[in-house]
């Protein structure tokens, strides 16, 4: 009989390192010259440097390297697709397997907490410029932190009650415990960044009427994506964003039934399926319209789902949802035009990509045909003082890409403000 792992919704999916095991792993690192891993990180975290610090018994120095380069170092340690980034670049792949960089990073950031370190400091002397950041997701947090480190005064407006964006309302807590997100966000707050929660820019407040010298938009993609098929308004039909957000906010009190179908082939689909399973559904399956080879999700994530007893059916696309007022059956058509299936289900979750909400309500900058903000690599939009980055610009990427975008935009904002002459120091 297969051994299916039983876990709780919030129990951690993997063990971290302790001092000794971290040391053992750091000893496997070849301490490369001009290390390839360090070039593999979009956010500029320097793995070779922090691993060397661990190896030479300086875990606090390791924590500093991470925090100084990546304000979401704790989060990234947990959720970065390291297999495609630093670990893929690791020289040790040529001998056996890469160094577990993500796990070492997790260990190093944990030292920050253990030793109650306060690594980042904002200058006592503030600059005159005031910047607003829309959203408290990774992109905005990274941008706000960079600006605050330089001395600018930053206010973050967030429609939800907590910071983190998809980290807090999306990604399954088994992979990313809330405490890790909170700790990362607290570092931003400690730099003097102001947070205004429960304020949806465009609805609750109008930034165009406020005197900010620059605005960064890191609003992400929060419009659900339901396919245009019959029955999509039945009860029991969810978008991934809503389903995950309900789960994160209500936890075990979120009742959605016992038989759950998740549609999609990305990590978000896996997170939804895992969430459903861990919250108690007996029968959870993922249905994807293409093959696993074509799926954008990480294989390790599918394997994790499988270990929890969640199977995946491929080459099946949703065609119709049946039920009186509540979902009863989901009908799928095969990609080959011949196959088909009808599954009895209490809930169906569509993890088929997020759409942008109407982002022009935030600021009237230009959007592309999909409704994403048009911005260049430096985060500049069609409006001079408005900058943007993260999912709202790239259409849905990774946390570390959002961090990178936030950092780059911060550099552009600083350049813009200095050029405009709002750089004189105030006390």
């Amino acid at each position: 009989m297969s051994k299916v792992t039983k876990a709780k919704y919030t129990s951690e999916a993997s063990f971290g390192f302790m001092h000794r095991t971290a040391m053992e792993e750091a000893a496997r690192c070849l301490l490369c010259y001009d290390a390839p891993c360090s070039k593999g990180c979009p956010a500029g975290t320097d793995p070779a440097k922090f691993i060397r610090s661990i190896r030479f018994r300086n875990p606090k120095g390791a924590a500093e390297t991470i925090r100084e380069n990546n304000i979401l170092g704790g989060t990234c340690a947990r959720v970065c697709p390291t297999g495609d980034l630093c670990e893929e670049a690791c020289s040790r792949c040529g001998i056996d397997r890469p160094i577990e960089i993500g796990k070492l990073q997790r260990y190093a950031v944990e030292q920050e907490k253990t030793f109650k370190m306060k690594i980042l400091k904002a200058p006592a002397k503030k600059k005159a410029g005031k910047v607003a950041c829309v959203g408290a997701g990774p992109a905005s947090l990274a941008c706000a932190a960079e600006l605050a480190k330089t001395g600018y005064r930053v206010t973050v407006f967030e429609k939800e009650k907590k910071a983190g964006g998809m980290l807090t309302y999306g990604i399954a807590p088994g992979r990313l415990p809330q405490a890790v997100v909170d700790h990362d966000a607290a570092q931003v707050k400690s730099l003097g960044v102001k947070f205004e929660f429960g304020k949806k820019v465009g609805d609750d407040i109008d930034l165009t009427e406020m005197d900010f010298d620059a605005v960064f938009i890191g609003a992400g993609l929060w419009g659900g994506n339901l396919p245009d098929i019959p029955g999509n308004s039945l009860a029991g039909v969810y978008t991934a964003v809503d389903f995950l957000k309900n789960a994160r906010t209500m936890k075990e009190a979120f009742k959605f039934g016992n038989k759950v179908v998740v549609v999609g082939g990305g990590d978000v689909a896996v997170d939804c399926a895992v969430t459903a399973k861990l919250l108690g559904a007996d029968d959870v399956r993922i249905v994807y319209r293409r093959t696993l080879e074509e799926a954008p999700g990480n294989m390790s994530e599918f394997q994790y789902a499988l270990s929890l007893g969640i199977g995946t059916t491929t080459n099946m696309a949703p065609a119709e949802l049946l039920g009186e007022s509540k979902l009863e059956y989901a009908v799928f058509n095969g990609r080959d035009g011949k196959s088909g299936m009808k599954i009895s289900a209490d809930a169906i979750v569509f993890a088929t990509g997020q759409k942008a909400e109407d982002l022009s309500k935030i600021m009237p900058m230009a959007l592309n045909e999909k409704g994403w903000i048009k911005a260049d690599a430096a985060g500049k939009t069609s409006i001079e003082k408005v900058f943007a980055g993260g999912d709202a610009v790239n259409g849905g990427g990774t946390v570390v890409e959002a961090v990178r975008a936030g950092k780059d935009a911060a550099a552009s904002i600083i350049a813009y403000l200095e050029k405009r002459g709002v750089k004189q120091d105030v006390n």
Partner: protein
Amino acid sequence: MSINKDLSIRYLGIDCENPFFLSSSPVGGNYEMVAKAYEAGWGGVFYKTVGVFVADECSPRFDQTSKEGLPWLGFKNMEQISDKPTEQNFENMMKLKRDYPDKVMAATIMGSSDEEWRALAKMCEQAGADLIEGNFSCPQMTSHAMGADVGTNPELVTAYSRAVTETTKIPFVAKMTPNITNMEIPAVAAIKGGAAGVSAINTVKSITNIDFENMAGMPVVDGKSSISGYSGAAVKPIALRFAAQLLQHEELKDVEISGIGGIETWRDAAEFLVLGCRNVQVTTAVMQYGYRIVEDMKSGMMHFMDERGYSKLEDFIGLALPNMIPAEGLNRDFQILPDFNVKKCIGCGRCYVSCYDGAHQAIDWDEKKRKPKLNDNCVGCHLCLNVCPVQGCITPGEVKWKEGRQKTGIKIKRNYD
């Protein structure tokens, strides 16, 4: 065990089923332990040192050193000699000899006066010990009339050796301390006193680590610590050095030496044997891993013999001794340049960093391809070969003869594992 080779050896006139013995320490401190060790396959045991003095031990009393996550590189202890009553220890030895007549029982003893050494020797005889070892080497005795303080005093070594050898015909082995510049001096002194053999080394005086919590050495005993004996893998190079120096000494050439210090594997043991030791002793590795390590010592040694066509230990004992020569005797006419196997190279750049920062800037680094390339500065030191993490990637290559030196046929080490 599929392989079977004769590991037996005659050591100081005693037939031993194999050369692997426990050295005198807590690993052979009572009846049950020694019995278990015998059953596990050890050829003999140097029983935990017995004196008239019964030790009063501190707590805690051990520490270890580590590097890169690897624990037990070396081990420190602050134990003295047996903390059990003298009579009980000799009774244990007697019972062990009775119950395991084919195994070797060596009694290690330590006195603080002529009379004590004589009394202890007598008791060894009554217990039926095959060998007596005199502990002239424990570096952490609470009395200066015993242990390493005696072992560095040749007159006392001769006197106490004589006290034993005049009392009994049982062959006497003098156990030496490494905390001395010339071990040959006390070793010769012991032979002068009638000793048949010498064993080395006991532990090296050390401070392993400093604890910042108490600002004291480790282990911390009520906020304090003492300099005391270091053993285990880290001391093997020191032990091998002393073994070679004893064995090469004119007056000790025919003395049978038992090698001790950092032995964990058959390979470590074989190293002592090829230098000329006829017996080896182990403690630290047993404390860390248990008696069972002897299984792989025996099996591994048999495979080694099989590979090289040896049928008995004598076939290879001492083979390496003549090849240990003074630095001034080495052939300095050539340089062996390293050969880089580009296919195996994983591009870590370690050779480049080490050659630049620690050798001769003889490697150029191709940043694009991430590959090393040798330039004319190379002196053949082989630092790069020693840091490269890939097996068989950097190997000894071209032999370059220095200007005006005569080319000759030279022996080269080719295989690194």
